[in-house]
């Protein structure tokens, strides 16, 4: 579904991604690990179309379409979802209005009628249960006054509402206590099926205990320098990143 080919990207003229290659197929879970500043979050920003990043080289194909040519909203309509590392607070915009706008724009893109208020509230209720999100949060402004854990659960709730084909979870485990981590991971697992795929960006093995990856990639200095199975994550947890640097001849 996703084919990233030799992707280079800049921010403020500084090259962060220096030739990423990655292929993701339906049903797969990919973990991308790597030390701070290696370009993990840049990759998710570039894939979702953040205007601050400039793609200088390479291509990204999503179900045969040129992803980089699409607006952020159309990438979402095509089935791409990003769970933000730092979800944004939007004072004055209620979760209900926010989600209704998102759902109805998706339906419009597909040529469907807007969802009725009753159906919409039913859907909200159903999906909220997946991440045990309080009804009170759903009636408040988007992420405003939410705790760290609530914000992350809210991301997964939105993912459940939009049913994306490819989800990128950017450091979804950061700032979570063990209970919140379990709820979030269980939510992700419930949403998993043979037709969708997940890219998990994380520092730690911890999240991968809950969301089992099929492939693990190490991102370092803007390139994927090593790929392997789940055992690679365990090895990284045990040895840190230094042995990879050593392999690259840096130490």
């Amino acid at each position, binding site marked *: 579904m996703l084919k990233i080919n030799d992707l280079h990207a800049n921010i403020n003229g500084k090259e962060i991604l220096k030739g990423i290659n990655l292929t993701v197929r339906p049903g797969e879970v990919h973990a991308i690990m790597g030390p701070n500043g290696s370009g993990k979050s840049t990759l998710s920003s570039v894939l*979702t*179309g*953040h*205007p601050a990043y400039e793609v200088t080289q390479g291509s990204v194909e999503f179900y045969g379409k040129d992803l980089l040519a699409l*607006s*952020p*909203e159309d*990438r*979402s*309509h095509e089935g791409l*979802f*990003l769970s*933000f590392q730092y*979800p*944004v*607070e*939007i*004072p*004055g*915009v209620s979760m209900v*209005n*926010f989600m209704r*706008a*998102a759902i109805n*724009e*998706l339906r419009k*893109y597909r040529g469907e009628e807007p969802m009725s208020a009753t159906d919409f509230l039913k859907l909200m209720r159903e999906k909220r249960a997946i991440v045990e999100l309080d009804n009170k949060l759903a009636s408040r*402004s988007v992420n405003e006054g939410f705790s760290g854990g609530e914000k992350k659960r809210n991301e997964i709730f*939105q993912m459940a509402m*939009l049913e994306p084909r490819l989800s990128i979870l950017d450091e979804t485990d950061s700032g979570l206590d063990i209970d919140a981590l379990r709820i979030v991971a269980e939510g992700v697992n419930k949403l998993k099926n043979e037709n969708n795929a997940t890219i998990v960006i994380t520092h730690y093995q911890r999240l991968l205990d809950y969301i089992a990856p099929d492939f693990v990639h190490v991102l370092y200095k803007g390139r994927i320098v090593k790929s392997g199975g789940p055992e690679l994550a365990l090895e990284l947890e045990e040895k840190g990143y230094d042995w990879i640097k050593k392999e690259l001849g840096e130490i």
Partner: protein
Amino acid sequence: MQAIQQYIDLYREQHEVIDQHSTQVLNALRPEALRRIESCTLPSTKHEDYQHTDLAAMYAPDYGLNITRIELPSQPHEAFRCDVPNLTTQLYFLVGDNFYRHHRNKELPNGVLAGSLRDMAEAHPELVARYYGKIADMSKDSTVALNTLLAQDGFFLYIPKGVVLDRPMQLVNIVGGGISMMHNRRILVVAEAGTQAKLLVCDHSEDDGTHQLISQVTEIWAGDGAVVDYYNLEENASCIQRISSTFVHQEANSNVLVNGITLRNGTTRDNYYIALNGEGAETNLCGMAIADGEKKVDVYTHIDHRKAHCNSNELFKFVLDENALGSFAGRILVREGAQKTEAYQSNKNLCASSTAHMYTKPQLEIYADDVKCSHGATVGQLDQQALFYMRTRGISEAEARMLLQFAFMSDVIENVRLDALKDRLRQLVEKRFRGELSQCQQCAMRTQKQ
């Protein structure tokens, strides 16, 4: 001075006709108004309080005045039949500055008077004379003096002691007709002790390209413990210039809400003068302006804390797009002896384009030493992070901008103390933002057809 000389000349030549088509109570103030205008000049843009509104340019065109009170052909009650759903009001109309006498309302309770200022002043001269021109201070602003010189009619609302008006009163002002005119309107509201009333004043105009100047002076008297809501909603065409001054006099323990909303306009200057004259009085003064294109909205407020133990809350918000210009100057005066005053002012503004301009100027003048006062002013852009976040959820940029701008205005709408109007305003504000997002959706906004 030149710009208004033509109207002074007009008065000198036609004052008998003007008087003849008005009434004694209004006529009585004209000589004083004339003296005021002749002894002072129209404030120029060098004047501290008029830096962003060029009054000379506003008054310069040779506008016609309807001094013989010709009834313009119009069926306003037909045109406005279904406009405000779920809001049942006593409905009154001013066409131009002429009171429309052909619309019948339900009977009003217990001595409440509502209708043409001229008719009411004929029937109850002592009552009207007691208040007319007493709250609006002509020395504050020569535009008020000019209005007093030329105004022949308007709207009068009187609520005698202790009466609670359940049903909101609504005055719809309609301007149009294809002739360039100056409209001098007066609104006088007298709410005696212990009364409660809500008045919604709406401005509408035909978008027929003819230039019109609206001059509106509103006087509100709130007696002891009276609770008065005054909403003024402007939905005018871009060819309309409007200058309004609202004067409020509050007695002890009265509670007055003034909410001035500019959704569509050409050039607007709104002045608010509020005087708290008795202990325990409370003022809520708020407003919003949404402007784009070459529109201008200039708001000046003056809250005068004359007595101790009074509260005032002030909140104004502007959303400006394209080349729009906004200005807010808010003065709070706390006089000596007005101890335990609480006065809060907030002005927040959003510039949605790089060519929109906002000027904001909070001014606190405090002569008492045991008070709580604050002011805050911000000018910002749309939150780019929030915009991107929404777009990644599939919300189009246009829709996301609309949601953010709407959210920005939501607290001004929340201050409305009339549920049906609150709902209506939400719709109107949303439509306003949507209508401007794509020019082809103009039809979503109602243009007055007569």
